[in-house]
């Protein structure tokens, strides 16, 4: 934190030599993100910014119109943050970033991924709250955010995700109570295990849901 090199001409040249550019907005978003990641095992080395589109990059899958529908970079030892730019991949169906070293907050922009079917961010070091904007993910079936350091209450907006079939929020630092409406009626309690400040199922009308937060 305290060692941002300032006025280091050689660093400047490095920055200048690698403008994050691409010929298509989705590739651009992905490459801008990649430029800020640490990728010790070169999992993302195929993310060539000069490609016409990102569809031949490893771990990226496109549909027949060359729009990105999948991002599969689980288990890849990557560190850095999850970029708000990912919210621009408007046809993305699978966002698989599990078991890496991603830090920081989950960007609210991910709520713009209207086509998303599965979001697996489990097994990282994500902090902050679960974005309320996730309520917009109407196609979402799988949401696994377990084994992170997420805090705050479970957004009530999630009860409107009527397609949600699998939810795992275990092993975080969430607080308040568990919603019981909508898809939450069917989730096993194990989905919420090991959140030491979580108070069990919501008693509607009795106690504010974020009590103890």
């Amino acid at each position, binding site marked *: 934190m305290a060692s941002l090199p*300032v006025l280091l001409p050689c660093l400047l040249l490095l920055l200048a030599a690698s403008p994050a550019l691409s*010929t298509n907005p989705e590739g651009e978003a992905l490459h801008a993100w990649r430029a800020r990641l640490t990728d010790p095992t070169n999992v993302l080395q195929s993310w060539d910014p*000069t490609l016409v589109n990102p569809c031949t990059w*490893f771990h990226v899958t496109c549909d027949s119109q060359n729009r990105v529908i999948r991002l599969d970079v689980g288990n890849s030892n990557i560190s850095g943050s999850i970029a708000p730019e990912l919210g621009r991949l408007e046809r993305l169906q699978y966002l698989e970033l599990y078991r890496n070293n991603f830090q920081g907050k989950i960007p609210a922009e991910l709520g713009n991924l209207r086509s998303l*079917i599965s979001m697996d961010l489990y097994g990282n070091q994500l902090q902050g709250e679960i974005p309320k904007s996730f309520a917009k993910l109407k196609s979402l079936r799988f949401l696994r955010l377990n084994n992170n350091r997420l805090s705050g209450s479970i957004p009530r907006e999630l009860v409107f995700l009527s397609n949600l079939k699998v939810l795992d929020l275990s092993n975080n630092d969430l607080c308040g109570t568990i919603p019981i409406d909508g898809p939450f009626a069917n989730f096993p309690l194990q989905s919420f295990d090991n959140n030491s400040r979580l*108070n069990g199922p*919501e008693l509607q009308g009795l106690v504010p849901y974020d009590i103890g937060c």
Partner: protein
Amino acid sequence: MRKAGSISIGSLFLSFFAMAVLSFISTTVSLSSDGKALLSLLAAASTGSSPGLLPSWDSSHPTPCSWQGVTCSPQGRVISLSLPNTFLNLTSIPPELSSLTSLQLLNLSSANISGAIPPSFGALASLRLLDLSSNALSGSIPQQLGAMASLQFLLLNSNRLSGSIPPALANLTSLQVLCLQDNLLDGSIPSQLGSLLSLQQFRIGGNPYLSGRLPPQLGLLTNLTTFGAAATSLSGAIPAEFGNLVNLQTFSLYDTDISGSVPPELGSCSELTNLYLHMNKITGGIPPQLGKLQKLTSLLLWGNSLTGPIPGDLANCSELVVLDLSANRLSGEVPSELGGLALLEQLHLSDNLLTGGIPEGLSNCSSLTALQLDKNSLSGSIPWHIGSLKSLQSLFLWGNSLSGTIPRSFGNCTELYALDLSKNRLTGTIPEEIFGLNKLSKLLLLGNSLTGSLPPSVANCQSLVRLRLGENQLAGEVPREIGMLQNLVFLDLYTNHFTGKLPPEIANITVLELLDVHNNHIAGEIPPQLGDLMNLEQLDLSENSFAGGIPASFGNLSYLNKLSLKSNLLTGSLPRSIRNLQKLTLLDASGNGLSGRIPPEIGSLTSLTISLNLSSNRLVGEIPQEISGLTRLQSLDLSGNMLGGGIQVLGLLTSLTFLNISINNFSGPIPATPFFRTLSSNSYLRNPDLCPSFDGYTCSSDLVPRAAIRSIKTVALACAVLGSAALLFVATWMLVGRNRKLAAEKTVTIPSSGCDFSHPWTLIPFQKLNFTVDNILEWLKDENVIGKGCSGMVYKAEMPGGELIALMSSPNFHHHAMSRIAGSYGYIAPEYGYTTKITEKSDVYSYGVVLLEILSGRSAIEPMVGDSLHIVEWVKKKMGSLEPAVNILDPKLRGMQDPMVQEMLQALGIAMFCVNSSPSERPTMKEVVALLMEVKSPPEEWGKTSQQPLLMSVKHG
């Protein structure tokens, strides 16, 4: 007040000093007070520091003047303490150092010091240099430092200092260097600092929370040579007053929130060599006045929102080495004058709106190593003279509208490392001269209209790592010489017109990770040698005319992630060796002539998550049971084959979000999972023997074809036959909150006599029940355990009213609140064990259990009898077996007239509908009643049963 206090403390110490000198002269050797003050450093050093630290600091010396890092005045006073890069490991700076009133230089940089800066340092009135940089100091900068009247150098950079910059620093009128960069300072820059007229270096960058505007008063600092405020949250415009900084050499203000335009006045900063304003929010045009900066070597304006043309005046900056204007919205043409910049090494104009041609004059920039004009709207042809840029290492012209051919003169750019001309309108052939470049690592010509063949001379370019030629009109055969490119990692030849066979020599490129030749006209067999490409991660041979079988050697591609073979002419069966592809996430073999069965080995591809597509082949047989191993598979397409048998196993693929099994010969019931319920009939189309099913085990046509049959009378009859079966069913749910408590009871009582369901469902507030939470808790003891549920123990409990109920305790929540659910064991729905919400559907389950008991003559749980299965499991097992369904019925009922037996079987189907494990798949009580009403029996039977409808009085709770 404080200042006065400091002075008096200082004089106090002076008198101490005098006494110390006196005592030294008169009696024994004793350390001077300056020496004692210095020893406080050693005392403060935490025990972790090495014991041999500063061995020369011997307290038996009369003065510290011979100590390491200490310099004294002729009078024996310490005037300098300098211990940089010494592992002092202090958790705080001892305030005693403030008594060194003669100190002129204090340097403790990189000494592993934490804690705060002592405010008493303000008393060091002689101090000219204070360097505490590169430590772990925290807290704020004491305003008392403003009292150090002699201070010329203040270096506090690279610590964890917070708070704002004290305006009192403006009193340091002798200050020449102020380095506060790389801390956690917040607030804004005090405008008072404009009075530091001696200041030459002012560096406050790397303080991400520093905000506010740049004070125009800083324009008064005419001695400034360096101003750095990069990587901060500063905002607003650059004050025009900065144009007064006539000695400024480096102006670094990148990665901030600075907006507004570049002040033309900066053109007056005639000493400027480095102007770094990139990654800001600057708008407007580039002022031509910058052309007056005769000493400018680096001009970085990239990543702003600059508009307008690139002023040709910049060509007057004859010392320019780096010019980066990329990622803006600059328009107009690339000024040909730039060709006059003889020293220019890097020209980056990427990602703008530039039009016109590439000026030939650029070829005069003979020092150029990087020329990046990509992502613009440049047109015309690539000037032949680019070839005279002998030092050129990278040339990016991709994403323009360049036409014409690729100049052969590129062959002269012998230093060229990366050449990217993708996404233009280039025509003609790839000049063979390019392959003579023995440093070329990346050659990207994607998305042009290049014709001709890929010459065998490509093999000369041994340095190639990425060869990406997709989306052109290249024709002819892929030369076998390509196998000699031993460094090639990516080979893209997709969407061209390549013909002939794929040369097996490709398999010699052992480092190859990507091989993409899709959408060509390549024929013949897939060379089995490809199995030698041990590093291959992506292999796309789709949309060609490959014939023959899929080589078994593909099983060796253990790193393979995606394999696409679709739309070829492949025959034979899927090789069993595919089981070794343990990293495969996508397998697409659709649109071929594959035959035989789906090998059971497919089930070992546990990493297969993205897609398995075997559609449009000639596959036969059944889906192997082993496919159930693909629990992470999300898309499965088996359509357009000749597959048969049941599809029960597909119900186990719980991650599926897409399924197509249409146009096959599948038969039997469709699995009753929620996913299958969401599928449209298109997914099953043209499988005449598939049938819908309520429970996933039986075709609904077997049980409810005559729809939902079920005469109430039949059940009544069954009830009568059973005689006095006493059924008491109590479902109570109770949640205990931290602040409030509530229990509600839902009771259904099925009295033994007369099958009279006269008691409606009731909901009784907790307070009206004659028990408390503590009553319940009393029963949670080991001796009351009667079983174990899905996620907790089940206890017997007797309510004060005498009813026996079952209590279930969930182990999941030990904190604050407990969730406890009660119901009659055996009748409680499975979701009681694992979910948070109990609905009416849970009661439907319980009702289904009761119906099953009536029909089968079995109790819900029969721990002492035979298999001890729960009744629901027992019935499911029976239905899944080959036994006739009638065997499920109570033996006493089996002998009845056939129409009645039929009706009871129909009732059985409804009961199974009620006990579906997924609450959402169960009917509502209303629907159950409707189904039961429709149970049909031949008309002549109606007269024989005259009892009242069994379910009439059951009201939907």
